[in-house]
């Protein structure tokens, strides 16, 4: 049963060069997959009925459903801005002195809602249009963490700890500023290698908007599935006593959640809900989770490598991780 299905799954990718066949293949595979599941679905139920699998699936769906509206609204707004606001506008709006452009670009993240997947291409296009890389990178780090949609989601996820919103905004802004200014001092332009890609969209603006939306929802959504599955796995399969023993150690718990944030790669519009579920951990450790997550994680590092090149990401990501953990711990200790 699994074998032919696996083969047909790989075929569209292989055939993507000869597109006529490959394109039709993908939809057919999808349709076949759904039909197959409709037929064998009832037979799957006893398999899934083990209490542990049920709890896993419930939590997986819960994270997906809770995050879905925020993801959709975020992508909607970032697509509108990406398509209907000219890129030149940002170059004009920023101060010409780089040291000043860094804080302005960081704060500009407030009005540019989107999750981190959306801000990587935006930062790339800002650099292309002549924005100083330090400012573009500060924007890249700040935008996913401090925009209103993400902060609202954080407030909803932590109804009893309103200071969490302030702490998250403050710590993330601080990391963006530090990394931007650090780039001005230490960064080298030749580390960044932007891919030469022709601007493709020949069609209407609505079409470009539709493309941007589809692309961002599917990519961010795909990685969200990975994150939701990982969160459900940790929730269900890791015994509470383990997490408690890690969670009770101050330094270890901070490091553990920083690593978890990198591994889970959850979209910033949804990560607050996952953080809320890690209720065994201190608020400071969870703030570190929320500060690191939108700035450094597996999917972001791979996206940054694709956009800016390996020489850039191999330096930028570890430095950001270090600064984010430190700032999260400092702000958390002071505020929470």
């Amino acid at each position, binding site marked *: 049963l699994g074998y032919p299905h696996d083969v047909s799954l790989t075929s569209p990718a292989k055939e993507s060069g000869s*597109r006529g066949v490959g394109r039709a293949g*993908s939809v057919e595979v999808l349709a076949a997959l759904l039909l197959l*599941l409709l037929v064998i679905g009832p037979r799957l139920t006893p398999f899934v009925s083990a209490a542990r699998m049920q*709890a896993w699936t*419930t939590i997986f*769906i*819960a994270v997906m*459903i809770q995050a879905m509206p925020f993801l959709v609204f975020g992508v909607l707004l970032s697509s509108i801005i990406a398509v209907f606001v000219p890129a030149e506008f940002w170059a004009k709006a920023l101060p010409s002195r780089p040291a000043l452009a860094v804080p302005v670009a960081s704060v500009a993240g407030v009005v540019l809602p989107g999750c981190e997947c959306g801000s990587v291409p935006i930062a790339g296009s800002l650099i292309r249009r002549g924005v100083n890389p330090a400012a573009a990178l500060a924007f890249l780090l700040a935008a996913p963490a401090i925009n209103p949609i993400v902060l609202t989601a954080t407030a909803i996820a932590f109804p009893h700890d309103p200071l969490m919103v302030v702490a998250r905004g403050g710590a993330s802004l601080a990391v963006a500023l530090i990394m931007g200014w650090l780039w001005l001092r230490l960064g080298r332009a030749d580390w960044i290698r932007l891919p030469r890609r022709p601007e493709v969209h020949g069609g209407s603006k609505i079409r470009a908007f539709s493309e941007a939306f589809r692309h961002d929802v599917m990519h961010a959504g795909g990685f969200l599935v990975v994150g939701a599955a990982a969160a459900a796995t940790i929730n269900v399969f890791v015994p509470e006593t383990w997490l408690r023993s890690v969670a009770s150690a101050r330094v270890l718990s901070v490091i553990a959640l920083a690593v978890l944030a990198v591994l889970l790669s959850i979209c910033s519009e949804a990560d607050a809900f996952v953080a809320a*579920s890690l209720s065994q951990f201190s608020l400071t450790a969870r703030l570190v989770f929320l500060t690191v997550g939108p700035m450094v994680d597996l999917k972001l590092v791979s996206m940054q490598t694709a956009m800016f090149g390996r020489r850039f990401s191999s330096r930028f990501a570890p430095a950001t991780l270090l600064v984010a953990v430190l700032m999260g711990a400092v702000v958390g200790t002071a505020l929470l």
Partner: protein
Amino acid sequence: VNRQAQAVVMLLLGAVVVKASLTDTYLRYVKHGLQPLLIIGGGLLVAMGALALWYEVRDLASSTKDSHHEHREPRVTWLLVLPVVALLLVAPPALGSYTAAQSGSILAAQSSTSDYGPLPPGDPVPIGLLDYASRAVFDQGRSLRGRDLQLSGFITLGPQGQPMLARIVVACCAADGRPIKVGLTGNIPQGVPANTWIQVIGGYTATTSTDPINGAVVPYLQVSTWQQIDEPAEPYDQ
């Protein structure tokens, strides 16, 4: 993954989310307040999926396009089929006695500073499990004495196999669900399988024990009568 398949997945995902939020299914996973956002978000997904699909179909018909069709999309986008399948075919039940047995009672985490006013009138008076437990433990049951109380929850088995009343408390979505547990004395429901929902009428008792998982205090309830009920539409403690 190609664009048509992606558009179809967007459409499907939006449709199953809207469907779940128009029935009570969504209450197994998230709180009531998210319903309007779910309907709007799901509706947007359906609309944008339909728009994307319309462009693809039009391209296919006119067959003048292509320059940007060569770009291969990463395969991670396929994963969005999983939540569609899980919601459409499995739609797993709300968290219940499995979670209650795995996790420590939530009362330890609660640092309640609010003062507990008198209970509303009513005989018996309905009261939530978390409310009962907080009043019993943090207010020494002052507001509970002499009242007939009505609690509902599901049966979970304690460390010695004794039946306890439990309910899952959710702050945001089921991923942060933690149980609140109340021990039972008096007319204890015997032979009721775990995860069965019951409604209990009883009174306050000063008996407590501790949850071996996290050391939380578990208050007890003196049961006078109980009956089996259906799982409520909102299964989580509010």
